[in-house]
């Protein structure tokens, strides 16, 4: 899409944020292969425009509920790369003190409520965060990310209904990457038009090109403005695609290479890059400078994770219950 209101400085920022996620996750793959990172790890490579476009619309006092594919959400929300990487290394310097790993990033400072690895499980919690804001008269918004796989869960339907019934200030950001792990949308849903599903609950719903970061940013900005004005929840279907496997254990038997290549031709990063070059807002030198800064940032994150320490086993059961009243 042609950016209706081009803002080169803003677009450079969006490009930088997407590149930060891409390069961070590419490094994660290397570190996984080197056995520095273990467990389940899900990459958002290809989906960066969604996290970056939506986060830009939020205020610092808004809340975010994300999924297990959360590195991009975390970085775009402003969680520093070092503690994020340290978390994946299982170090006490990690955002969740090494208790969560890749799938469970939490950060009180940015009101980032996970990193939820039960598909659909974050939706009711997001409604509750919004309910607290409603009851306390605060004009905050809760952004809730979930994949299209979650729309098959009862928690999606229960939460859509509740959010509309109580006019809760939630932005439902549905990342439709077409596959619930290996199950294509058409193989799991009788109605594949996700906007219609949300509309069935009288929730304002729009579909957006999730491979176009300026389109996502515009749609999210509009939605957040509406929600903050008190119109209740908004559902955005962000049509996107993950270029990599579901997790590190996925042989990708369920989709054709041609399909993956076709979506890669819509990669949001070169797309915005080309637009910026075309209007003269970015050249090779500028791009190299952005990449160099990101390399420095990721190197520092890895160094922090490598230098991180292990929590003493004696502290294993700390935080099962709160140590002090909140």
């Amino acid at each position, binding site marked *: 899409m042609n950016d209706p209101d081009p803002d080169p400085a803003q677009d450079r920022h969006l490009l930088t944020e997407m590149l930060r996620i891409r390069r961070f996750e590419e490094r994660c793959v290397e570190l996984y292969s080197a056995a520095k990172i273990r467990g389940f790890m899900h990459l958002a490579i290809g989906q960066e425009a969604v996290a970056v476009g939506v986060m830009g619309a939020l205020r610092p006092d808004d809340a975010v509920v994300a999924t297990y594919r959360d590195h991009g959400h975390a970085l775009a929300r402003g969680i520093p790369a070092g503690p994020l990487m340290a978390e994946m290394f299982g170090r006490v310097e990690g955002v969740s003190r090494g208790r969560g790993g890749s799938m*469970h990033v939490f950060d*009180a400072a940015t009101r980032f409520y*996970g990193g939820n690895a*039960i598909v659909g499980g974050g939706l009711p919690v997001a409604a*509750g*965060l919004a309910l607290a804001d409603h009851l306390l008269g605060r004009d905050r918004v809760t952004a809730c990310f979930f994949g299209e796989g979650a729309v098959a869960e009862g928690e999606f339907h229960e939460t859509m209904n509740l959010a509309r019934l109580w006019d809760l200030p939630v932005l439902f950001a549905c990342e439709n990457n077409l596959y619930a792990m290996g199950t294509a949308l058409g193989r799991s849903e009788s109605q594949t038009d996700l906007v219609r599903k949300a509309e069935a609950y009288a929730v304002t719903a729009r579909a957006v090109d999730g491979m176009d970061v300026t389109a996502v940013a515009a749609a999210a900005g509009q939605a957040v403005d509406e929600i903050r004005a008190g119109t209740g929840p908004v559902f955005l279907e962000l049509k996107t695609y993950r270029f990599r496997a579901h997790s590190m254990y996925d042989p990708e038997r369920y989709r054709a290479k041609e399909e993956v290549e076709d979506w890669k031709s819509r990669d949001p990063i070169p797309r915005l890059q080309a637009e910026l070059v075309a209007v003269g807002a970015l050249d090779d030198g500028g791009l190299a400078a952005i990449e160099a800064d990101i390399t420095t940032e990721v190197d520092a994150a890895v160094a922090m994770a490598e230098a991180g320490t292990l929590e003493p086993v004696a502290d294993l059961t700390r935080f099962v219950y*709160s140590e002090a009243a909140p």
Partner: protein
Amino acid sequence: MTTYREAMREALRDALTRDERVFLMGEDVGAYGGCFAVSLGLLEEFGPERIRDTPLSESAFVGAGIGAALGGMRPIVEIMTVNFSLLALDQIVNTAAALSHMSGGQFHVPLVIRMTTGAGRQLAAQHSHSLEGWYAHVPGLRVVAPATLADARGMLWTALEDPDPVIIFEHGALYNVEGALDPDAGPTDIDKAAVRRAGEDLTLIAFAGTVGKALEAAEDLADEGVSAEVIDLRTLRPLDTATLLESVTRTHRAVVVDEGWRTGSLAAEISARLAEQAFYELDAPVARVCSAEVPIPYAQHLEQAALPQVRTIVAAARGVLAG
């Protein structure tokens, strides 16, 4: 005279009055007055924002309770029965119980969930089960079971002051129990088991709906010249093992009464702790009186046959005394 139901209602009223962050939500808590009439009249008193009727969406409204707690409120979520709570098990176990630890201590869930448990009212297999033991299995939760009017009145506020999720199990057969409640009755601790009757010859360990039956059994045993101590667990997680050990160290014999199924039950956990920590104090194997391993049936004679009864508790007590 006050009923258990009225004591619970007074606890709710007190909490709503004390703290503006407190609100009650659940199915039919408002206009209907509560499935078991616990919240009757509170809608008129506190309004629909704070006495909040929900759709039949257990997972969503329990999850919303978690989110609201994270957002600074002190929600009380009512689930009609423990059977229905299984529809919200994901939120309770995977989120509420796990969040503090999983986030490295950054987030706390000061949520109170109330639910009815237990059999005895001919409500059959989908409204009568006692699954307290399942919840007591889960680290991150605190689980309490008021068996007396004072605890029905007193446990709620203490639970609300807890920074972590607390589940309050209200035994359905207790709602109509009447008794005297001190007009000054207020918050009670939720840490300690209570000795409801002192005795010397054996210890009957019970909770919630079985405390009254254990007390009756102790009365019958007294007629036989047996002095039974009755302990009300009150808190099912964490278990107050110290009070149990202290008692058994004196009496040397124990019977555990649990309306849950025997296999994998709280009674099994308590028996194991006594075997681990008081083995040489015991003069007989610990006995258990649990529910028969069947889905609770409707027909009254079958239902009663499935549940711990005064006579089965007395029989078990005689067994350990003979041992």
